[in-house]
C-alpha cells in the first residue's frame, strides 16, 4: 500500500514485516529514527514476539546480535560511521561465524574530524569483513532490499549490510509502497538456523583455527560470496514476481547500453544522476549510468558487460582510500582490466564527502569535461582550491602538528577565543 513517509520509518516497518525475533539497538545519527520507531512497534504490539533492547554501545549491539543469531533468532540492528567502527571486531566475527544478521548502515562519514553527514566511508571501512554489502538508491528500494536481505542472509548463512544514505534517504519523506504481510510471508519463510546453540544437539561455535586450516576456511568464505552473485539476481527476480518491483539485483543500467560516457555510482546519487542524464540525452549527449546495487560481492562480470562498449567511465564515489585514491574506481579498474584492456578510460571522481551537496550542475561539468577529453584521472569534485592552496603554502613555511581542520583555521587567521594568561 502506498504511503508518504520518511525512509527511516519505512525501513522500520519493513523490518517489522520480516518478523525479527531480537533487535538490540544503540542510537547514532542518522539511524536514530529507525531504532526509535522499532521500539514503538514492539511496545505497541504491532511487532509481536520480538525482543527489543536498548544496549550500551554498538559493540554490545553487534555482540547481542551474534548471541541471538547463534541461538537461532532472526536478528537485526542498525548503525553508522563511528558506531560501525566501534563494533568492527564483532562485524568481522559475525561473518566469520556465518551468522545471518541483517544490519542497516545509515551511511555517514567517519571522523576525525567528526561529521554527521552522509558519505560512504563507513561502508568502505568494512568492505573486507566478509559481509554482503548492498546499496539502495531510494526509500522504496530500502524497503524492498531489507526484505530481500533476510532471505539472502539466511540462504547463505552470511550477514548482510544494507547501505542507505544518511539524511538523504533516512530523513527524506517520499512515496513508498509498503508490502502486505502476506506478500512478505510468501517471500520470506521463517528462519531455520543451519546450526545453533541448542541443548538438544550441543555444538561448539568459535574454535581457534590454525595455519593448517585457516586458508581453506577463508577461501570458502570468498567462494560463498561469489555464489551469492547468482543468488542476489535470482532473489531479485523472485521479489519482482511477488511484489512487482525491480529492486535489488547486482547492477542496474540506465541508458548505459549504447552510451559513450557512463557514470558509475552507488546509492542515492543515482537519482540526481538520472535527472541529469535525462537532460543530457535530450541535448544529444551519449551518456548513461550504471548503478551498483551489490558492492560485496563485487559483480565484476556484470560491470564488464555493462561498460565494455563505452569509451569513458566516470566512477563517482563518496569515499576514497587516503593516500591511494578512489576505492570504487580502483575496483572497477581491476575488474575491467581483466576483460577489457586499455581501450576503456576510467576516471575517478570523489565527491559528496562529509555531506557536501552533489548538484546536477557539478555532475554536468564532469560529463562536459569528459566529452571534451579534459577530465582528469582523479578529481575531487567541488574542492575549494583556494583554501587548499593557502594551507599547502602555509605548510611549506611553518611546521605544525595536529589536526588539519584546526590548522586551516590558523592559516585563515581566525583569532582564537582564548585569552593569553
Amino acid at each position: 500500500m502506498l504511503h508518504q513517509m520518511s525512509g527511516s520509518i519505512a525501513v522500520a516497518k519493513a523490518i517489522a514485516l520480516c518478523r525479527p525475533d531480537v533487535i538490540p539497538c544503540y542510537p547514532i545519527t542518522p539511524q536514530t529514527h529507525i531504532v526509535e520507531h522499532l521500539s514503538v512497534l514492539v511496545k505497541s504490539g504491532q511487532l509481536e514476539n520480538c525482543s527489543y533492547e536498548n544496549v550500551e554501545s554498538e559493540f554490545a549491539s553487534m555482540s547481542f546480535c551474534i548471541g541471538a543469531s547463534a541461538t537461532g533468532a532472526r536478528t537485526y540492528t542498525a548503525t553508522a560511521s563511528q558506531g560501525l567502527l566501534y563494533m568492527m571486531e564483532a562485524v568481522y566475527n559475525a561473518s566469520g561465524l556465518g551468522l545471518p544478521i541483517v544490519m542497516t548502515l545509515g551511511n555517514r562519514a567517519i571522523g576525525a574530524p567528526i561529521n554527521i553527514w552522509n558519505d560512504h566511508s563507513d561502508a568502505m571501512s568494512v568492505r573486507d569483513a566478509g559481509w554482503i554489502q548492498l546499496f539502495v538508491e531510494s526509500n522504496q528500494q530500502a524497503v524492498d532490499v531489507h526484505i530481500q536481505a533476510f532471505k539472502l542472509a539466511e540462504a547463505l548463512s552470511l550477514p548482510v549490510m544494507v547501505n542507505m544514505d544518511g539524511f538523504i534517504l533516512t530523513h527524506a519523506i517520499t512515496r513508498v509502497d509498503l508490502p502486505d504481510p502476506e506478500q512478505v510471508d510468501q517471500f520470506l519463510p521463517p528462519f531455520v538456523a543451519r546450526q545453533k546453540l541448542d541443548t538438544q544437539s550441543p555444538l561448539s561455535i568459535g574454535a581457534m583455527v590454525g595455519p593448517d586450516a585457516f586458508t581453506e576456511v577463508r577461501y570458502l568464505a570468498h567462494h560463498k560470496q561469489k555464489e551469492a552473485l547468482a543468488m542476489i539476481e535470482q532473489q531479485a527476480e523472485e521479489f519482482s514476481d511477488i511484489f512487482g518491483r525491480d529492486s535489488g539485483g547486482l547492477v542496474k543500467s540506465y541508458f548505459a547500453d549504447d552510451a559513450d560516457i557512463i557514470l558509475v555510482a552507488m546509492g542515492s546519487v543515482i537519482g540526481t544522476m538520472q535527472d541529469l542524464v535525462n537532460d543530457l540525452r535530450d541535448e544529444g549527449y551519449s551518456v548513461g549510468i550504471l548503478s551498483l546495487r551489490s558492492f560485496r560481492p563485487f559483480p565484476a562480470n556484470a560491470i564488464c558487460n555493462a561498460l565494455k562498449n563505452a569509451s569513458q567511465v566516470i566512477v563517482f564515489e563518496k569515499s576514497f582510500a587516503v593516500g591511494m585514491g578512489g576505492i570504487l574506481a580502483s575496483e572497477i579498474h581491476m575488474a575491467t582490466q581483466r576483460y577489457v584492456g586499455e581501450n576503456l578510460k576510467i576516471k575517478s571522481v570523489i565527491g559528496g564527502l562529509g555531506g557536501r551537496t552533489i548538484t546536477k550542475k557539478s555532475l554536468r561539468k564532469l560529463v562536459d569535461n569528459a566529452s571534451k577529453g579534459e577530465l582528469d584521472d582523479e578529481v575531487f569534485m567541488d574542492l575549494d582550491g583556494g583554501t587548499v592552496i593557502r594551507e599547502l603554502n602555509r605548510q611549506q613555511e611553518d611546521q605544525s602538528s595536529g589536526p588539519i581542520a584546526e590548522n586551516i583555521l590558523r592559516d585563515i587567521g581566525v583569532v582564537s577565543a582564548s585569552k593569553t594568561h
Partner: protein
Amino acid sequence: MTRKAQSAADEQTVKFYQTGTFTVGNRLLDEEFRTVQATQERSNSIDSGHRACQGCGQALGARYALDTAMRVTDNQIIAANATGCLEVFTTPYPETAWSIPWIHSLFGNVASVASGIAATLKAKGDTTTRVIAQGGDGGTTDIGFACLSGMFDRNDDVLFICYDNGGYMNTGVQRSSATPGGARTSTTMPVGDHPGSSFTTGKYLPAIAMAHEIPYVATASVHDLHDLERKIEKAMTFRGARYIQIDVPCPLGWGSEPSQTIKLARLGVQSGLVPLFEAEYGELSNSTKIRYQVPVEEYLQLQRRFAHVLKPANVDQLETIRALAEKNIKRYRLL
C-alpha cells in the same frame, strides 16, 4: 553609577535585592565566599557564543566546574571531552568556545584519552598541569564505561566530570542507562500500559565509582553552585582518579521550561531523587541534608517526560519512583 548605567536605570527600574546573600555571582560578598563567576578575572574557560539551548543545565554546570578548576590550579588544566552535547555546542567549526587546551576524540574513550594526557604530564615531570575528562551520562555510563573503569583501576590522576541529564540528548533524546525509570525518551516511549524507560536495577555511576575505592567521588547539582564549586575545589586537592557527577536538567529532553532549570535541579535534590554526597576511598564522607523535603510529584510534574507517570492509571510507577527517593534518603542519609 556611570552615566551609561544611569540612563539605563532611567529606562528600566532595576531592583538590587540580593546584597549580602550568598547568591551566586554576588560581588559584594567577601572574597572567600564569592563564586568564581563573581570575579572579573574568571577564566571563561567556556566563553560566550556557544550554541547550547536556552536553559541548558550542562552549559551552566560545565562553566562553573571548569572555571573553578582553573582558579584553583592557577589556570593549568587540560580538558578532554567525549562526543555529546557539550562537545557539539562548544565547537561548531570553525569556532570554539574553549579558552583552555581541549581535545575531543571519540564517544567512548574520553577516560582513556585523559589518562594518556595525565601519563604524558607525569613522564615529562609536570606536576602543575591537571587533567579533566568530561562527558554526558551516555558517554560515561554506557559506551564509556569500560574505559572509565580502567582509569579508576589505574588510579590515573584525572578528574572525571559526568554531566548527567539522563539520556542521549544530542542525538534526539534516546535512553541511556542513566535514564530514570518511567521517563519518556524516543526509544522508551510510554505505549499503552508500558512505562517509559523501564525500572531496572539502574546503573548509578557514583556508587560504582565508590566501589572502585578511588580517592574522591561526589555528586552535585546546578541549583547549588557554591556546593559544586566546593566539590571541584575539594577534588583538585586529591591526586589520583576522582569522579564528580553533576545533575543537569535538559529542557529539551525533559520537556521542561528553559527558565525552570535551576528550580528543577533543586526539586530533584529536595525530593531525594538526586542525592548530594561525597565519598573518599569508597566510604561515604559527607551528605547534604534535605532541608525541605518535597514529594516527588512536584519534581515530576514540571517535566513532560513524566507526564504519563502522573496519570491515575500509572500510580504504581509513581510509587516506584517514590520508593526510589526513600531508598536514596536512607542510603545516603539525606534526612
